[in-house]
């Protein structure tokens, strides 16, 4: 079974990156959809990491895992 995880990577105040991911990502996500979601997350500003608040979009990727249940 294939599972898709969307990893959204943000820049933060400390000049580092913070990753926020969602499991079971939709198959047909577009760049625009992901960018707009990431912008909402930045604008709402509810996350506080050790390296400060999220300041910008770094990158985003879909990680696909293929799981074969044996037992």
């Amino acid at each position, binding site marked *: 079974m294939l599972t898709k995880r969307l990893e959204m990577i943000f820049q933060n105040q400390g000049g580092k990156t913070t990753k926020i991911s969602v499991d079971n990502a*939709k198959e047909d996500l577009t760049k625009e959809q992901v960018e707009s979601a990431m912008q909402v997350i930045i604008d709402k500003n509810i996350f506080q990491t050790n390296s400060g608040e999220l300041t910008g979009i770094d990158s985003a990727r879909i990680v696909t895992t293929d799981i074969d249940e044996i037992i």
Partner: protein
Amino acid sequence: MAVSVKMGPSKLKITFSNGMDDNGNEKKRSRTYSNIKPTAKDQDIYDVATTLIGLQNSKALEVERVDEKEIVEA
């Protein structure tokens, strides 16, 4: 002894439906996001939750805010 309260980091917990089990009961799966500001507004947390839910296939059942308080001697 007098105590004072220090607000810890809050969390956002989203519970999803993960299909049905053999007995027809809904299976649940939850995902917790840490590092939420204790001062964040409920509305803003909810809006972020809705945004995250919109990116995935599973049906969301519940959005919860988990706040922690540390109690220390004043």
